């Protein structure tokens, strides 16, 4: 051992300590997920090795990984992701606008609630794929048909999120607003909307999940030749019996869905923590 050991600070410098703490927190959140993926891949591999189905139908994990590695080098792959994400974002943006306006209208105006309050919940329970025959009749086999169904899939959840958020604003807050002299616009802006925000974000999260599902259903049903999308690539992979590519696309779809969910749930956790609410 060298002699200068004793003169070195015992504690690592502060920023290193902070960084290592952040890393260990990250690791604590990550290792269960990594473990689950490893376990899943192991089971998959075991099923393949058991010979339950021939390899060209159920390829091994490594084969799929190699296919995915090849895919990411093709421009069509990124084009497909681009098309799908653009459709998802456009549809979701419309759904947010429509769901928010409808939600506020229902929570504000009694006749509107009586008229369409329960219809919104009904729409929410309706599998969005049943809209496609009508959408295709109305718009034809094109982008509008897909967007139409994505909006119908997502908007009811978003509207319901804002309705239940506003319904459950503590009366003490609105009373306070009145005491502080807020007019109806200020009452909404500073008391009602912020109080309803956690429920609204939960509605957005659920709305996104429905939008994503509707979009995938739409891309499998409404295939537009000129525009490769994740759904159409998945469908072609099936047509050509290309099992490795089919599963590779499924993995991509799963990962994109999970990424979006991570964004929403981290936002909602941050908001709940700031308000001193329970964070699971």
């Amino acid at each position: 051992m060298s002699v200068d050991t004793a003169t070195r600070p015992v504690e690592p410098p502060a920023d290193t300590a902070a960084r290592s703490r952040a890393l260990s927190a990250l690791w604590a959140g990550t290792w269960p997920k990594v473990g689950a993926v490893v376990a899943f891949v192991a089971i998959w591999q075991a099923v393949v090795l058991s010979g339950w189905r021939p390899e060209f139908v159920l390829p091994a994990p490594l084969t799929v990984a190699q296919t995915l590695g090849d895919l990411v080098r093709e421009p069509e792959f990124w084009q497909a992701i681009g098309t799908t994400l653009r459709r998802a974002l456009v549809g979701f943006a419309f759904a947010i606008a429509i769901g928010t306006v409808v939600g506020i209208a229902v929570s504000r105006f009694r006749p509107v609630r009586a008229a369409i309050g329960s219809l919104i919940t009904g729409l929410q329970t309706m599998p969005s794929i049943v809209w496609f025959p009508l959408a295709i009749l109305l718009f034809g086999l094109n982008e509008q048909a897909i967007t139409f169904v994505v909006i119908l899939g997502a908007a009811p959840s978003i509207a319901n999120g804002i309705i239940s958020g506003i319904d459950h604003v503590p009366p003490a807050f609105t009373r306070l607003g009145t005491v502080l002299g807020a007019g109806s616009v200020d009452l909404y802006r500073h008391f009602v909307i912020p109080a309803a925000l956690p429920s609204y974000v939960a509605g957005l999260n659920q709305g996104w999940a429905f939008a994503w599902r509707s979009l995938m259903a739409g891309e499998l049903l409404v295939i537009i030749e000129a525009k490769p999308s994740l759904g159409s690539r998945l469908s072609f992979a099936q047509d050509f019996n290309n099992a490795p590519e089919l599963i590779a696309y499924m993995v991509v779809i799963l990962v994109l869905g999970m990424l979006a969910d991570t964004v929403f749930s981290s936002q909602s956790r941050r908001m709940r923590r700031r308000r001193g609410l329970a964070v699971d």
Partner: protein
Amino acid sequence: MTVTENEARPAPGARPEPVAHGGVRLTGVTKVFGRGATATTALQDVDLDVRPGEFVTIVGASGCGKSTLLSLVAGLEQVTTGTLEVGGRVALMFQEATLLPWLTAAQNVALALKLRGVARAERTPQAHALLERVRLGAYADKRPHELSGGMRQRVALARVLAQDASVVCMDEPLGALDAMTRDHMHDEIERVAGEAGLTVLFVTHNVREAVRLGDRAVLMGSSPGRVVHTEHIDLPRPRRMEDPEVARRAGSLTAALREDVARHVG
């Protein structure tokens, strides 16, 4: 000045002079909730004249209309008959601090300033100054859930000051606090109200607290709610909850209160 007059009644001995800034005057105020068979007379023929800067405490059995009285003064409800005159802006403080959980202490105070029309640039420094006045300067950037119950009520007190009201209605503001924190809040409310020259209407269930704080304690009776007894408390300040004289006055008020409760239970 706000005047509510739902029924022109010839006041006995006619009171021509309007209520002064910071004063509150109820003349024959009756408040009925609902109508027909379900109507509840919460207040009947209440007369109360509060001087500017006076600290009036209100005690009475549960349901005798204390909160209703404050809601009328604060303008949250309208009188059914009678006249209510209030000289200036009214602020209201509740049993719960009702701070907005998505804002910091300073932002909660600043929101009251904003709704009062204070210019944006002045809000933050003013909010900090108000928090200093309730000795919470160091907690300006904390969120409500990071504060104790007593601290939250002090933020609510700073917010009341932000409203720049001349009359403050407090509805059992210390009911949820432990005895130590409550004693501390007595000093704080007394000091802050004194400094700002506020008129205070303070509802409490604690008779001793009513004597500790009030220039005058008003005892309300129930079914229907009305003023049954007024006690002028001319004890020197500062007072303490444990003072024997405070205890003695509280004793006589409690006897009067018991009498009213017994009349309705027995």
